[in-house]
């Protein structure tokens, strides 16, 4: 994948965003081990966007769009892995419980015309807010599962990865917002005192809702960024 800065094909090489800085101190060793493509994408996430050379809107949007596309590949796997560890009925094939919702997590579903008519700022704001909430909820689910399923290293690592990706996407969306001149909202504590006192079954359901909404919001983010891409990228 190349960008207009002419950085060349991004494979196992380190991505140079600023010619004077080597982006090598990534805490995301998980990705470096498993996916050769990811170090490039994620080094983009972690690099603060206060560099010497200004990043263009098109680049910013492209980058964010590609990240969302990459994330989309793994979101359904996360839901399936999560359900496997909770036992029946969750682990039954084809399990679906749309009636379960979390009041602290806004659903991704929105009427089409309403969604189509969103302004750029509002569109990005909604996605940003959603992934901020998702990152917090994924941390909660990680803690719950560490307690309920302590032996499930596969699940725990996938949950940790999803949380990091959510944070990464937030960062990228923030960069697009900055270039567009939209002010980035302060981080809000979406959980409040919700977590405490939940029963085991509630915690199992909660994790399902969070991973499901993570999948839905990632799909939505891809669509939102496609709209922006069509508008701003040549």
């Amino acid at each position, binding site marked *: 994948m190349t960008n207009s800065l002419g950085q060349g094909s991004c494979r196992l090489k380190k991505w140079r965003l600023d010619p004077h800085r080597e982006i090598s101190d990534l805490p995301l060793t998980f990705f470096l081990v498993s996916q050769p493509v990811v170090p490039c994408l994620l080094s983009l996430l972690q690099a603060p966007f206060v560099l010497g050379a200004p990043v263009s809107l098109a680049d910013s949007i492209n980058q964010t769009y590609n990240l969302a596309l990459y994330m989309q590949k793994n979101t359904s796997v996360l839901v399936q892995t999560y359900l496997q560890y*909770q036992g029946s*009925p969750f682990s039954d094939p084809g399990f679906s419980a749309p009636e*379960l919702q979390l009041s602290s997590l806004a659903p991704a579903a929105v009427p089409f015309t309403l969604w189509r008519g969103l302004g750029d700022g509002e569109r990005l704001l909604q996605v940003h807010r959603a992934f901020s909430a998702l990152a917090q909820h994924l941390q909660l689910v990680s803690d719950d599962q560490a307690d309920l399923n302590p032996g499930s290293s596969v699940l725990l690592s996938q949950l940790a990865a999803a949380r990091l990706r959510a944070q990464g996407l937030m960062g990228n969306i923030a960069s697009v917002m900055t270039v567009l001149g939209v002010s980035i909202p302060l981080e809000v504590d*979406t*959980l409040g005192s919700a977590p405490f006192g939940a*029963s*085991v*079954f509630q915690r199992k*359901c909660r994790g399902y809702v969070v991973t499901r909404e993570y999948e839905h919001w990632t799909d939505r983010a891809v669509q939102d960024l496609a709209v922006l891409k069509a508008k701003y990228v040549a």
Partner: protein
Amino acid sequence: MLRAAGGGLRLGAALPTARTMLALALLAFGALRAGSGSYLAVIAPQDPTLLIGSSLHATCSVSVSGGDTPTAEGLYWTLNGRRLAPELSQVLNATTLGLALANLNGSKQQSGDNLVCHARDGSILAGSCLYVGLPPEKPVNISCWSKNMKDLTCRWFPGTQGETFLHTNYTLKYKLRWYGQDNTCQEYHTVGPYSCHIPKDLALFTPYEIWVEATNRLGSARSEVVTLDILDVVTTDPPPDVHVSRVGGLEDQLSVHWNSPPALKDFLFQAKYQIRYRVEDSVEWKVVDDVSNQTSCRLAGLKPGTVYFVQVRCNPFGIYGSKKAGIWSEWSHPTAASTPRSERQGSSGACEPRGGEPSSMPVRRELKQFLGWLKKHSYCPNLSFRLYDQWRAWMQKSHKTRNQDEGLLSSGRRSTARGPTRR
């Protein structure tokens, strides 16, 4: 749809009485909304822990929301995804469905069995996770070892039944026998699921008491206390620098050299060593056992022209003058070497399998004794074992056949003593 304020569970919040009923239901259910848009429900008891074979009475209470009249009609129970027989549930009152389960089996997963109350259309209204199992058994068979007297690793077994169906936590504890408080081991699963490693701060020359505590939701159990002194359970690294080489042209011998493990070199001990070897395509190891405190050994009675794999291990016998054996180290990495090819031509059929081990040793010992006696009583001052080896090498070069079958060993020796024999 009413939500608890802030999307969260506010304990102790004061709410207007008109909505208290609903709010209480919501508080019990936290921020999770369920129900097919109309109902909200609560199961009692939440997350109970039960012994295998016990019974359970549960209730699913629906409450109002959205204006519909809630009813317990049409609701049903599932346990781990399987619908429960209708005769087990009963409508207790207009808004409560009861359940009576008897003779419960152990939980299917450690996160608890999922008991769910469903609406008529199958959607999930509420759930409760059942933990059914047994209290833990006494852990048994604690065995410990110390690597170079620096640390202590212990292993145990979970008790005869093994399966408690509940997540069981094991804690290894230790204390100095005569004083001090209990210490808890921190690093678990170092050599398998029931193991722990104590990396430092261990005293020598004084006994420790060690035991394992097992705990789960139903109770706990404690193993017998094992008393040991670190010096009694010392093991070390395998001997380094293992070299295997040929002995001149001798086609049935290999010489093994190694160094004593460096970690214990400052401590007074006499190492015992064991060597094992096998041919390349065999899985049977032959063991040479009585190698005391020397760093070389000669293997004899081997097949010519064969690749052998050799390993050595060490036992730190007599640490600090103790009379007790330590614990055998791991085997060293296999070292390979090959014996020289036999001088025989085209007679692979005559290559009998050789016994190749202790059966040749007593003969050599006897020979040594004979030579020693000869030296004392004869006029041959240059008689030595080496001379014997040289003679043998000469024998191999000048003769085509040597018969050293295990069963024919004595006759083989006879033939060499008498002189060359052609067969």
